[in-house]
């Protein structure tokens, strides 16, 4: 593990690819649940980037950021899924295009 | 990595694997015998001495049964789910230490497959992955009772995992380590069940709920849900679920012993491994005893108990322990 077998750039490219796939998911999928999962994918890509930079610079601040990202993701999922259930009860749909009226 | 290390690793994996897989028929036999006597019957006695071979016979029968696939079941997930269940149970067994180090052929050998420094987190991780086997099994069957069983167990296991994890935190605070062998070693003079009795009680209750055993077996409540999540599983797939339930019991009992009941320590000249086995058998007996004694809880009572009693109690216990530790310096 002393030599650099896998350079930082490789991790960054992987993170970029995962992030892009997440972006595609948010933009082209219609099911709100899949959009959610794509957002999780993007958050994870960023986490990977953070951890890779942490390793490169030998500083653990990146790990702390990942910790906070996970806390935010957990909060986001709890709220998001609760909203989704509320919408589904009212409209029987999980399609984001069907929810375009800002009234109950 | 030299040859000796590889041989050591392979032997240890084989020992644990063999122990778990051979132990399950024994536990099942013990369960049926103990339950029988507690209910004033004899239990299995025809096959082999004291009915010892009954489980083997049942296993053979399952092996030759037809493997059914429900109509419109999700084929891939239906095959995947039982495998996931048994794999997570066996992987969790890798970090449970069953003794201290011994010197054999001039080598220091730790009596555990691996001694990672985050063993406790690893264990929580694998048990949390264990939920998937049940949830997916319930979903993939495309049938209403399994689905309900899967839903129930996912909610139940998430809820009880929290209290279980937090009940282990005081142990980590006392020993200052997440490694299970370190925790085991720290109990040479006093078992942690003495200073952490409440944590122990919470852990045991959560352990019963995590392994889906009575009185918390809501996921497979036969009076309401036929057989819960594994209603549609037959033949070897059912056997895998069966196996993983008992393997999980062994793992969870191993963790309870390692964290609270003095691991491999015990009075007298009995070797540590034997002490561990004795405690393991007693703990499993306790599991069966619970099943024979308590009626099943209602589902809302179960969730309410987890969130409103166990979780606050474990948090309170953690806070008190922290204060005491700081005051002692």
């Amino acid at each position, binding site marked *: 593990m002393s030599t650099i077998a896998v350079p930082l750039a490789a991790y960054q490219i992987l993170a970029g690819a995962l992030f892009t796939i997440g972006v595609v998911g948010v933009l082209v999928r219609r099911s709100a649940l899949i959009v959610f999962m794509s957002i999780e994918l993007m958050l994870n890509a960023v986490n990977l980037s953070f951890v890779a930079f942490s390793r490169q610079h030998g500083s653990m601040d990146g790990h702390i950021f990942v910790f906070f990202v996970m806390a935010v993701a957990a909060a986001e999922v709890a709220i998001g899924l609760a909203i989704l*259930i509320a919408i589904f009860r009212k409209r029987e749909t999980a399609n984001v295009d069907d929810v375009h009226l800002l009234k109950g | 990595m030299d040859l000796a290390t590889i041989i050591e690793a392979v032997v240890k994996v084989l020992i644990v694997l063999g122990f778990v897989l051979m132990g399950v028929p024994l536990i099942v036999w013990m369960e049926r015998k103990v339950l029988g006597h507690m209910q004033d019957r004899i239990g299995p006695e025809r096959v082999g001495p004291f009915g010892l071979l009954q489980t083997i016979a049942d296993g053979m029968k399952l092996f030759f049964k037809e493997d059914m696939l429900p109509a419109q079941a999700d084929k891939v997930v239906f095959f995947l789910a039982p495998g996931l269940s048994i794999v997570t149970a066996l992987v969790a067994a890798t970090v449970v230490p069953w003794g201290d180090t011994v010197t054999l052929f001039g080598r220091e050998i730790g009596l555990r497959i691996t001694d990672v420094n985050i063993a406790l987190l690893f264990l929580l991780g694998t048990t949390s992955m264990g939920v998937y086997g049940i949830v997916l099994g319930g979903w993939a069957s495309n049938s209403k009772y399994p689905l309900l069983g899967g839903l129930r167990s996912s909610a139940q296991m998430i809820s009880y995992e929290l209290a279980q994890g937090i009940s282990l935190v005081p142990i980590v605070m006392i020993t200052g380590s997440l490694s299970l062998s370190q925790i085991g070693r720290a109990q040479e003079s006093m078992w942690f069940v003495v200073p952490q009795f409440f944590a122990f009680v919470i852990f045991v209750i959560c352990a019963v709920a995590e392994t889906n055993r009575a009185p918390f077996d809501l996921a497979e409540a036969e009076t309401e849900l036929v057989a819960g999540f594994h209603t549609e599983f037959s033949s070897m797939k059912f056997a895998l679920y069966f196996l993983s339930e008992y393997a999980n019991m062994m793992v969870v009992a191993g963790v309870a012993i390692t964290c609270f009941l003095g691991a491999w320590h015990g009075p007298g000249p009995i070797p540590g491994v034997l002490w561990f086995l004795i405690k393991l058998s007693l703990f499993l007996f306790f599991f069966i005893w619970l099943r024979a004694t308590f009626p099943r809880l209602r589902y809302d009572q179960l969730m309410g108990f987890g969130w409103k009693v166990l979780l606050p109690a474990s948090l309170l216990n953690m806070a008190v322990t922290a204060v005491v530790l700081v005051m002692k310096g």
Partner: protein
Amino acid sequence: MTEIILFSLFALTAVTCALGVVFHKNPVHCALLLVAVLLSLAGLFIMLHAQFIAALQVIVYAGAIMVLFLFVLMLLNVRRHEDVLTPGAAKGFGFLFALIVFVELLWVALSPGGGEQGSVGAPAALPQEFGSPAAIGRILYTTWLYPFEITSILLLVAVVGAVLLARRKFVG
């Protein structure tokens, strides 16, 4: 050598499964593929000496958040085959935009790093305890104590919000 093989393995799994998450029809399969992505990322975290983060990834992400997802999927039973992709021009635009994002990210990743600590070259030597729970705890409860406390408030708000939203009827 082992490192390169492991990296390729995890990276390949992650990208393939991520594509599956976005393009698979069945939402439950999407969730499972996402779990696979999360687990391979946990593997990469371990390779990057972040054991604690890897454990968190498995316990929190794969073990709790994704189970919650599955729970909601099963509760709502979204099985009807709706249009997988958004129809019409929006789809083309979406792919185009994603392509631009990817090219940009690629450009940033491959450009030589500026600043004092370059992002190219040999990684820094690591202290003994790098990535261990003890080391993370030490800086989390000293340097980052304030954000940590705020996070707890965030989680409390999320709990209250989720309970309020998921209730069957709004009172008043």
